[in-house]
């Protein structure tokens, strides 16, 4: 992994960097597996395997492949990075060894999470109860961040397209359609596998209680299916199947579902994001609460990923000839 890291820094060709970071992410997922952090590994797998590379490429297509050769070495930034890195390493020296049962974290909240979550919250997968219930506020914050990111992308570059010439658009579409959907091999496989990916995403969504997974991973996987469709059949075809209003609605709906669950808790006489009051039996309340917010997370994440990809990919590719002319 270190080798890959150094290789990443040394490489000037951003395209090769994208490829290598793909490997980095694969290895990271495997490391998480070794450390038994199944849910984290799942996230890394879902994000790293498809979406991250695709989004980076979409960005690359907007910016160009070669890193700008910097004229001056920025001593200040190097110094800051070195100092921060040293501080972090120094910090880890004090940390208990991996898996040390005497580590402070094992004395405070972890025992409660591990021992009590089964009857306080319910789901057999402890990570789900921690994220969705004990740390409900944090997760709501994360979802809002994703929501904001997608809204930002729409606001910033969603409009650029209108300034481009129709001619450019037509040629672009032609090239999109021409290159991919006419390849029978890719077309057949895509048709074959898209329903499977979608169903698998929903499976991950609804089994977050029992195994690794949950809303975030499910959203990413579902978005992968739509992105694959967009890649092979062209953005415009994909937009016809999944119109823009749908993703934007999903984006907002997800956050609303999450926050709404919290408010519902308030209304019914509990604290914000306290699900126990949602039903007569507090375990059922927790269950439904977690279920709803996970669904909210999934919808938001999927909608955000799809929005970002489609917004970027519409601009793709920057045709050098066009730029010279305009």
């Amino acid at each position: 992994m270190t080798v890959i890291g150094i290789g990443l820094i040394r490489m000037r060709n951003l395209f090769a960097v994208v490829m290598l970071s793909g490997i980095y992410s694969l290895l990271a997922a495997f490391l998480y597996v070794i450390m038994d952090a199944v849910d984290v590994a799942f996230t890394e797998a879902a994000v790293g395997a498809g979406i991250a590379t695709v989004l980076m490429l979409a960005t690359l297509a907007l910016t160009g492949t070669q890193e700008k050769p910097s004229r001056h070495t920025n001593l200040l930034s190097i110094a800051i990075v070195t100092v921060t890195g040293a501080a972090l390493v120094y910090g880890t020296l004090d940390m208990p060894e991996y898996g040390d049962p005497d580590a402070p974290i094992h004395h405070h909240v972890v025992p409660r999470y591990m021992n009590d979550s089964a009857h306080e919250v319910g789901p057999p997968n402890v990570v789900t109860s921690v994220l969705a219930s004990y740390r409900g506020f944090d997760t709501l914050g994360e979802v809002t961040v994703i929501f904001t990111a997608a809204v930002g992308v729409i606001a910033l570059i969603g409009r650029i397209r209108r300034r481009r010439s129709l001619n450019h658009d037509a040629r672009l579409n032609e090239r999109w359609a021409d290159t991919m959907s006419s390849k029978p091999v890719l077309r057949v496989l895509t048709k074959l596998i898209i329903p499977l990916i979608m169903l698998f995403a929903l499976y991950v969504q609804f089994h977050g209680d029992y195994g690794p997974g949950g809303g975030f991973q499910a959203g990413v996987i579902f978005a992968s299916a739509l992105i694959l469709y967009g890649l092979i059949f062209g953005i415009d075809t994909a937009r016809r199947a999944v119109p823009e209003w749908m993703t934007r609605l999903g984006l907002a709906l997800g956050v609303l579902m999450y926050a709404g669950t919290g408010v519902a808790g308030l209304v019914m006489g509990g604290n914000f994001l306290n699900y126990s009051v949602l039903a007569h039996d507090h375990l059922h309340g927790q269950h439904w609460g977690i279920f709803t917010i996970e669904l909210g997370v999934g919808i938001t994440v999927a909608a955000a990923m799809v929005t970002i990809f489609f917004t970027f990919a519409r601009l793709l590719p920057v045709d050098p000839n066009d730029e010279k002319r305009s």
Partner: protein
Amino acid sequence: MIHAISLGIFLSLFWLLLSGYFKALLLILGLISVGIAVVVALRMEVIDHEGHPVHLTLRGTWFWPWLTWEIIKANLDVAKVILDPKLPIQRLVFRVKAGQSDELGHVVYANAITLTPGTVSIDVNDGEITVHALTRGAAEGLANGEMDRRATALVDGPGALPKDRAGDRTGGTG
């Protein structure tokens, strides 16, 4: 429509095998999920005889074991070449005709070519597949047409090429 229904059945099976939980709530959720997947797939227009080739499953019972055996033979051949200190490769690029009647057939054939190490399909164009082969033996094994016949029998039915069935016994040099 038939394809949509069979896709739904297939996806339900997929869900049950993945899940392994038979609680009422999860079964209902599974049903909803299958519904969502089928509806989105319908909107995408990916359900047709290409996207959901259910008619191939039965005939596939003859094709897959044969292909697996071919893959194992091809693996041994390539392994020998790679481990040989002299690295005796003879790279060839050539075209084969795909005798299948539609593009789905060409795809099956092309993927079968790629799956056997030693040959990779690099282009599919109007019933002709451009193939890159690592050794002459692999190329000749493909060119004798056995795999083409098998794939045709898979896609178009065994009746499509009645007179060629006699040639099946010749076998590939693989």
